[in-house]
């Protein structure tokens, strides 16, 4: 064994010290703005971290690569397009919105890293539309500790509605349980007494949906409950076993809480064994352009988008294919101007709608808002926001859940055609599914 002269130990220490100091000099903390209280004057101040007289900087974690990227990677570019449009039309109180989104590859460990970078290094005002349940859960408590507004999480988990424990966090989309209740009450209205099968993803998403189904469908009608794990291994062998079991149990209606890839595998497996029940599908798993691509790529061209025809689903936003809706007309023109490289589909509508809602929140928070101001503005005024959504948000001082209902629609030749009443309800089993009679306003001509 070589004996290392002790001098080299000191040399190592010295080198480490120098490297450390250089790193500190390069990566030194940028000065935090903020601290000043909201003022009602008509001049813009740097009222909070991430807010200057001319800009609002927000950040997000998005799956730009990895298993969740197909489809979902289009959302942040669509939001960016909406912000560019708003910025070009005067911004929010004259401030332009600067949206930084980082790729987390749908890996929660990466989410933890990139969100810390956004908050501690980039000094963003808020985290906006962070995507995914497991990923966002990784930063939930961090954002509360740092008191960073955590606005409009892109996940239908009911875990974002926890106003006392997670006061900074607000949901956006209709949660899986509310959606499950609405889909199941439609089933009860149209196929009462038929045998029903469930196929769901074995996690928060699927279990949340099933919780909703079970509140509306009598247990005696449910003849088969099948699930799968949302892992590469869980989907590698297709869903033939699950679909066969549901068919063998004699189900005439199948309730699906499945991601797009699993929906495609289900429809293909059913087509192979000549099984054609009524499919009732979560809004998560049915975007027709995404499905069409998946169906033809999984079946190697033998099947296509037409296999999804007749599938019943629901949505809280107008359908991308509803060209008569003025919001869709506006969004499509923004898409064509600022986001033309990305496909035009439900993900684009989602990205723009959530960005629009952020603009509304910032307008409600006042000219020179603090971080706390935007949270209290959402609690006091968010419940009465109207916009691209078909139903109101559930925001109040005691609830932070997003949209509270959905409208039913049918997939037809690559389009999603919605019709009939808009329904609303809540997670709790005592609340019945009721009809929502409010109307959607036309989009504003200016901002």
């Amino acid at each position, binding site marked *: 064994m070589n004996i290392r002269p002790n001098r080299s130990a000191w040399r190592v220490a010295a080198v480490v010290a120098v490297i*450390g100091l250089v790193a500190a000099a390069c*990566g030194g903390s940028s000065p935090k703005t903020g601290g000043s209280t909201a003022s009602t004057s008509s001049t813009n101040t740097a009222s909070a971290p991430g807010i200057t007289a001319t800009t609002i900087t927000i950040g997000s974690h998005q799956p730009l690569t990895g298993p969740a990227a197909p489809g979902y990677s289009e959302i942040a570019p669509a939001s960016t397009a909406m912000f560019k449009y708003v910025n070009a039309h005067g911004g929010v109180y004259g401030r332009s919105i600067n949206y930084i989104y980082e790729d987390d590859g749908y890996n*929660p460990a990466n989410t933890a890293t990139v969100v810390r*970078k956004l908050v501690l290094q980039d000094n963003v005002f808020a985290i906006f539309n962070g995507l995914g*349940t497991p990923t966002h859960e990784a*930063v939930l408590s961090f954002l509360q500790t740092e008191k960073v507004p955590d606005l409009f999480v892109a996940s239908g988990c009911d875990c974002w509605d926890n106003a006392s424990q997670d006061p900074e966090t607000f949901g956006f989309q209709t949660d899986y349980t509310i959606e499950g209740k609405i889909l199941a009450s439609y089933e009860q209205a149209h196929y009462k007494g038929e045998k029903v099968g469930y196929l769901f993803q074995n996690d928060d998403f699927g279990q949340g949906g099933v919780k909703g189904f079970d509140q509306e469908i009598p247990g005696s009608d449910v003849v088969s409950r099948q699930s799968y794990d949302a*892992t590469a291994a869980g989907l590698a062998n297709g869903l033939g076993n699950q679909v066969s079991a549901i068919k063998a149990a004699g189900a005439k209606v199948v309730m699906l809480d499945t991601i797009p890839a699993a929906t495609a595998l289900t429809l293909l497996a059913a087509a192979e064994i000549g099984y054609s029940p009524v499919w009732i599908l979560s809004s998560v798993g049915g975007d027709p352009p995404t499905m069409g691509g998946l169906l033809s790529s999984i079946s190697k061209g033998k099947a296509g988008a037409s296999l999804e025809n007749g599938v019943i689903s629901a949505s809280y936003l107008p359908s991308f294919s509803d060209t008569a809706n003025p919001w869709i007309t506006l969004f499509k023109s923004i898409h064509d101007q600022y986001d033309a490289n990305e496909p035009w589909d439900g993900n684009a509508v989602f990205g723009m709608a959530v960005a629009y809602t952020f603009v509304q929140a910032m307008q409600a928070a006042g000219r020179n808002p603090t971080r706390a101001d935007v949270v209290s503005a959402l609690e006091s005024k968010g419940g009465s926001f109207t916009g691209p959504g078909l139903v109101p948000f559930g925001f109040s001082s005691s609830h932070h859940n997003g949209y509270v209902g959905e409208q039913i629609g049918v997939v037809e030749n690559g389009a999603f055609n919605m019709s009939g009443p808009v329904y609303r309800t809540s997670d709790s089993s005592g609340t019945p599914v009721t009809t929502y009679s409010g109307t959607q306003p036309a989009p504003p001509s200016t901002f």
Partner: protein
Amino acid sequence: MLRAGPLGRPLVRHLAVALGLVVVLFLVSGVLSSYNNFQVALISSYVIAVAGLSLLTGLNGQISLGHGAFMAVGAYTTALLEKHQHWPLALVLALSAVTAALAGLVTGLGAARLRGPYLAGATLALAVGLPELTIKFTSTLGGESGLPVNPPPPVSFLGASFDPNRYLAWVAILCVAVTLVLLANLVTSRFGRDFRAVRDDEIAASLSGIRVASNQVLAFVVSAACAGLGGAIYALATGIVNPAGFSLVLSIAILTGAVIGGLGTLAGAVWGGILLVYLPRWADSLSNGLKLDKAISSNLALGLYGVVLIVVILVFPSGLQGALRQADRALRSRFRSGPGASGAGMAPGPATAGPVAPGPGAETS
């Protein structure tokens, strides 16, 4: 002179070096931003895990593609202990290492019977399979969404406003120091000699009276314990444990870090840990800066990772630490006559200390 007296003994010498480094890093952490301190903690978790793997592969000749799984064992132990018990942090960290060591013992017993690609395959199965257990035992282990881990609150005398990331960096640095001192001593002890003997020639080692199998199991246990401690720090830093965080990619990243840093050297583990944190970010900002098509830019980071790995292996087969040592030796022979002191690694000797001749594989590639 310092060299005389107690400082001549390895343990004392290692402790002195470690103490110096710890003091310097503690001071530096006050200058760093909160985010940089978080990165220090993350780097530390990788350094500990990479050092463990480096010992196993570089010193004992056993390959493992499953160290991400041992990190998961340590991380979940921390998460579960934090959730159900309110034990001191030091105890939680120690128990996380012990649990991972037990997992390493079981794996090591099997691994000692396997060689080369078979061992790689078996440990690969561990990396793929173990995280799936969390989905099977959802009620205990939290399934896909995992378990939250609260960062350790700074000890009370530091004051309520003390930055938790800075405190975490302190804890992490201390763990790195303790691990590296223990490993450095293990390496210079009889066990380290036995490890190398087994790596170089199992038959010769057993003829010299070394019990090859138990020696290999011991290396696995030590290595897994390191990964477990690294995993515990990782869990405290990221604030969550879930299966997606401990995928096969992590296992391969640890091995990559060990190879790029310099297999079998403790200093190399430090380089490896730093690279594992910074390389993806650099690659990311490069691919963002170039404004490439999405299909290319989303894969560029991974591609760059591969290129760095290939270049390092071709140009510096003994890793960054080997390259530094070469440069050091070249400088010394220029400015000083007389024999240069040899390296700071844990595997001195011709195999890694000098420029390694590229093997036939490298020449043809």
